[in-house]
């Protein structure tokens, strides 16, 4: 099938209201073909509602959605064949085996990989005869992705694919997704793990309270802090004014929270000695000092003053 070369996902002015909350409050988004795009944000930011509107499972109140150049209203049947969907809360049938489950989903599509290939791609060949109820969390998630890949989709939607998984299972799933990308597929995923976005995504959009509050490559977003490093410290016996901290060499941003201070800095080697000098002069005792490379988490904190896990 020849498809036009427009974006994989385009939406404009998306709004979804529920009786008690505005879940999506005017969202514009464009995802290019072949791209891996991550929607980031805390729980309740509107990520799931947004992705379900794009998946054609929820109808928006306002705004336009175009998926692979098609609209849900006119081309629902064709779109269903071109998309792979993985939902956050689906529990596949515990009483079926891995292979039976994949066969079932594969049967719905008119083309795609063979059942054995799908099992191979998600590394579940050795578990093909196991009941779904007996799988680990990571295996269940990979099975769920295998079902999403059953129609060899052009675009894959994943809603928090690695939430609740241990680090090893997460990496295994990332490998599966990278393989899909290597075949030219487009991915739109939601996550509240910043490291996941960093590893997988070409671009990320940070969502908070139904809006996109930042958009760019992970590198651009981190760079928007104006600093590549973050120095976190806590002091006892004195308090330092924000103005003083801002004057320290290399510092681009100061965030204070619960007695902890985070400094975004471009020059770690200049900032840290100056900070220590400053603390000594003031007679303050350090109770904590750490540094790390700036991450998307720091971007979120600097934009909202909250941590992602605070929700």
């Amino acid at each position, binding site marked *: 099938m020849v498809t036009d070369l427009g974006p994989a996902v385009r939406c404009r002015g998306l709004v979804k209201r529920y009786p008690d909350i505005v879940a999506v409050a005017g969202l514009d988004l464009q995802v290019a073909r072949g791209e891996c795009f991550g929607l980031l944000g805390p729980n309740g930011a509107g990520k799931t509602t947004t992705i379900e509107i794009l*998946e*054609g*499972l929820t109808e928006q109140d306002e705004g336009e959605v175009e998926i692979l150049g098609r609209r849900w209203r006119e081309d629902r*049947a064709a779109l*269903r*064949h071109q*998309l792979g*969907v993985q*939902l956050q*809360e*689906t*529990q*596949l*049938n515990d*009483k*079926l085996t891995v292979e*039976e489950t994949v*066969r*079932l*989903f*594969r*049967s*719905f*599509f*008119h*083309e*795609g*990989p*063979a*059942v*054995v*290939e*799908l099992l191979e791609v998600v590394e579940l060949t050795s578990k093909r005869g196991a*009941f779904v109820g007996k799988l680990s969390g990571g295996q269940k998630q990979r099975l769920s992705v295998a*079902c999403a890949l*059953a*129609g060899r989709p052009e675009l894959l939607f994943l809603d928090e694919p690695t939430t609740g998984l241990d680090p090893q299972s997460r990496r295994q799933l990332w490998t599966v997704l990278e393989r899909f990308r290597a075949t030219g597929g487009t991915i739109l995923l939601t996550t509240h793990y910043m490291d996941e976005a960093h590893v997988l995504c070409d671009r990320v959009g940070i969502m908070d309270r139904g809006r996109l509050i930042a958009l760019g490559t992970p590198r651009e977003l981190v760079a928007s802090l104006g600093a590549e490093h973050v120095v976190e410290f806590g002091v006892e016996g004195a308090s330092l004014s924000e103005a003083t901290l801002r004057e320290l060499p290399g510092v681009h941003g100061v965030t204070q929270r619960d007695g902890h201070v985070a400094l975004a800095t471009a020059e770690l080697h200049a900032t840290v000695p100056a900070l220590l000098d400053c603390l000594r002069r003031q007679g303050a005792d350090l109770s904590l000092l750490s540094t790390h490379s700036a991450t998307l988490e720091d971007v979120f904190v600097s934009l909202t003053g909250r941590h992602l896990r605070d929700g």
Partner: protein
Amino acid sequence: MVDRGGASHPLVELTLARFREFLREPEAVFWVFAFPVIMTCALGIAFRARGAEPVIVGVVAQDGADGVRATLEAAGGFTVRSVAPGDVDRAIRDGRAPVVVVPGRPPAYRYDEARAESQVARLAVDAALQRAAGRVDAFAARQEPIDVVGSRYIDWLVPGLLGMNIMSTGLWGVGFAIVQARTRKLLKRLVATPMSRAEYLASHVLSRLLFLALETGVIVGFAWVAFDVGVHGGLAALALLALLGALSFGGLGLLVASRARTIEGVSGLMNLVMMPMWVLSGVFFASSNFPDVMQPFIQALPLTALNDALRGVINEGLPLASLWKELALLVAWGTIPFALALKLFRWQ
């Protein structure tokens, strides 16, 4: 040619999935197969044909009791029980003696007019005592007791139990599976694929048909072996009827489950749908016991149609052609709720 990567047609895969799911659920297997057999067995034993049984007669322990006892024992066919004078009404009420003779000249009979058993016992006792006292019968009628298989209560009961089982497994089997898939968000996941919604619903009904062959076989086979309840009509006709019954109740099950969000919710609805039919549709006693004004309603119920048709085939050996009204009703009950369910169904 559509490439399904080694999988079969979605309708086949969906039906197989349902079938496997069910067989791997031991409790469900019990309710569908073991339960009706136990039920048939218990009722069969309770209502088995007992041949000519002695009539139980109570005699009040007072003067003349020995004479009455001797007379009845001489006549034969009676089991005589002595009843204390103050205990007569209770003996009748408890069923210890359907009729109690109060010796005297003439004797008196105490019995319950509303109970057929009591009436029969009174007539038998009266005849025996009258003859012993010298009454001469005007003529001796030829006695022709029938012992036709097919006319016993158990013969009448088995088709009703079969119908009831087709109803309850159809409704529960479809309803539970659907609501469970809904609460587990599996329905939502399925509609995110190109799966045909009609095929999904149809697979639930079709998977019922696979069990049905087993269910019907087990019940009919058991009744035949244990109680000598034979099928007088064609087995193909019986199979077709069971099939129609399953389609009919499968469709109804879909409708009942089309919007329910919880297992509790759907259970309540199921009972609401099934209760009237258990009572009205002639499972344990004939639906003609209900007043005429209710008959049009009763006759329109799918279980009434199914039971009537099953009795027609099993007991009377009627050809299907003569049961066209029942068959048409079952088809209507299968298709209209299915179409409604497809419209009303809550997928998320």
